[in-house]
């Protein structure tokens, strides 16, 4: 984890209080800044959650979790748990 934060181009310094994909309101769009959890990041990257890509929260499951995220201009939908979405940091 430490290695990842310090040396990866993905993660900027001082990430503690940043917004994540979990904090989006339904219908709101953000831009992916970086991915926090290194192992989760590998899976998210493969699924197209790449820094710079736009992400829109299109809905939540009735019980608030998981979330439905629409990615990029290619319009495909991912389902992720809230805990997983919390590792996707957004640009200010």
């Amino acid at each position, binding site marked *: 984890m430490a*290695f*990842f934060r310090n*040396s*990866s*181009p*993905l993660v900027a310094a001082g990430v503690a209080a940043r917004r994540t994909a979990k904090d989006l309101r339904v219908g709101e769009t953000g831009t992916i800044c970086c*991915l926090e959890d*290194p*192992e*989760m*990041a*590998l*899976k*998210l*990257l*493969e*699924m*197209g959650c*790449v*820094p710079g890509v736009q992400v829109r929260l*299109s*809905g939540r*499951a*009735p*019980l*608030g*979790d*998981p979330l*439905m995220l*629409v990615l*990029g*201009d*290619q*319009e*495909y*939908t*991912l*389902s*992720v*748990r809230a805990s*997983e979405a919390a590792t996707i940091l957004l640009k200010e």
Partner: protein
Amino acid sequence: MAAIERNPATAESLAPPAGPATSPRPLRIALIGNPNSGKTSLFNQLTGLNQKVGNFPGVTVDRKSGFAQLTPVQRAEIVDLPGTYSLYPKSLDEKVITDLLYDRAAGNYPDFVVVTVDANNLRRSLLLFTQLGDLGLPAVLALNMMDVAERHGIRIDLPALERELGVPIIPMNARKGIGVAALKIVMAQRLDAAPERFWEPDEALLPLVRQIRYYFDLHNDYLALHYAQQYRHIGFLSDDDKAYLQELTHQYEFDATARQAAETIARYGRINDILLETVTVTRTETREPISNRIDKVLTHRIGGYLIFLSILFLLFQAIFAWAQYPMDWIDQGIAALSATIQENFDGPLVRLLTEGVLAGLGGVLIFIPQIALLFGFLAVLEETGYMARVTFLMDKLMRPFGLSGKSVVPMISGLACAVPAIMGARTIESWKDRMITIFVTPLMSCSARIPVYTVLVALVVPDQAAWGVFNLRGVTLMGLYLLGLFSALGSAWALKIVLKARERSYFIMEFPVYQWPRWKNVALTIYQKVQAFVMQAGKVIVAISVLLWVLATYGPGQKQETAEAQVRQQVAAQGWNEEETSRRVASARLENSYAGSFGRALEPAIRPLGYDWKIGIALLTSFAAREVFVGTISTIYSVGQDADMGTLQDKLRAEKDENGQPFFTPARAFSLLVFYVFAMQCMSTLAVTYRETKSWKWPVAQLVYMTGLAYVAALAVYQVLA
């Protein structure tokens, strides 16, 4: 098209000495691509019905392969690999792919790969493609769903993309079969040229990578890097090799996770450059995609659950009601066949054939309608994309119990029959979630428990209204189902704590776009599931059925003959007719058979639960399948197998214990009911658990745990109520 024009040249210049005509074996081609990229459709188009399902060595993943007739004289073996997003496997299923593609020396190493790519998701799909290219695998790119892409305003400059990627590209629509002919022509050219290189390990990694490459004599750097990344999971490496790689990666301070992330990002950068040159997107529509609008309804906070419940209701209707007709036909067919054989032939071998083998076969075949219907339903839900939404709706509810949204469908199917339900748990990628689901599914009250419940509940629960509206028997029955459900959830929760996860559980999943099911795929799924059940679980069922028949038919020494003689002596005195006599004889023979002896031997162990040796026999024989309980009880109380429920209940009511009191007290009946809620009385389930987990550990654990639970619960019930 450029691909076809250029290709013969490459094939000629690079073809190995043995040309296609004199080739000693057919081409071997692997089909690989993202989930939902149309890979299965393409596989079915290429091979038709000419396919078979086996297993990859060492894992439970189905290995689907088939033969495609590329040209009138050339056939190719096509292997359908599990859907994956990258060459860094995240689930056990995906490890099959790396095991196949890493080992060039292996006998089943493919000559080249066909990569299916969704034209709407080019960027993400090309990630996997560039990794395959860098491994040096010759490839063809099947660019699927071109029609949808065009509708979305995505324009792809195919010649330019072919130049950039260095492989032939076949635009296609696999669902409709468009482009398949062109793909076959290209495949028949026996591709040898690998695509462009897209990414190389950077300078800092080269010392490590080169050392691995020369040590294992590998053909390129990127493969060597994969060894460094994944040596722990590569099946064909020896322990020494793994130790060597561990030491080496440690020595070079190789950070697998960071390197993998950096590689993925670099690849996306390269892919972006390529797409910038070759793809233009003109978004014409401003409306929300239809799929999103359907989602608004199907995942609505109230409507979503109501729709799901309605679909479940339909599923149950199908499995309980519709399946009943073909099940009756099978039942009657087997019975008629058995009767015909017995009328015309006689002897121990014939009885073994009819009462052992045929009865066991009937026990296998009887499940086919339910399995076919269940998997037909599930395949339609999967094909349309609805299944992903169900898991989405249910995930939060299942999480506290160590289950995931994907466990819902198998557990609900378990109410019909645990056998197809456990097979349905394959869709769960996470090993731990899947094992928990398989383990607890048999606790859901399946349809085979219904006969047992019906007889015993009717025996001790009065047929009267409860709280005005409900029938007391109905309420009891519901209580038994709820007991099953809660014990399944509770056991899952306990198992979550016990089980150590070998891999991390993800829920990240792509929502497939809604589409009409392809009925050919549905039919193939049904056919393959039924075949797998009959061929693999069926063998075990028939074997145990034969064993149980032997135990129930033969007895130690002359005991059976003596008992039969005693019964026959009483015939005149009691004035029994022929039918009554044969029932009494059957009862006496069963009592003195090996199974009867086991029942008596079992008695001390089950006496605390309130059972006697007669119930002991029924417990033993109903190990084959729960519904056998009723048949055995009928034989023991000599009412004859065909008697209706009323006759059996009268007999059971008349049964007295040693003090002359009614034997079947509420305490005894409820103790038995609870026993049947929990007990693993179904060898088909054990057989299928073995097949699905590829280990005897799981079925044995299931048997011990569920029987233990049943014993303790039945003991508690009897001791409290008695």
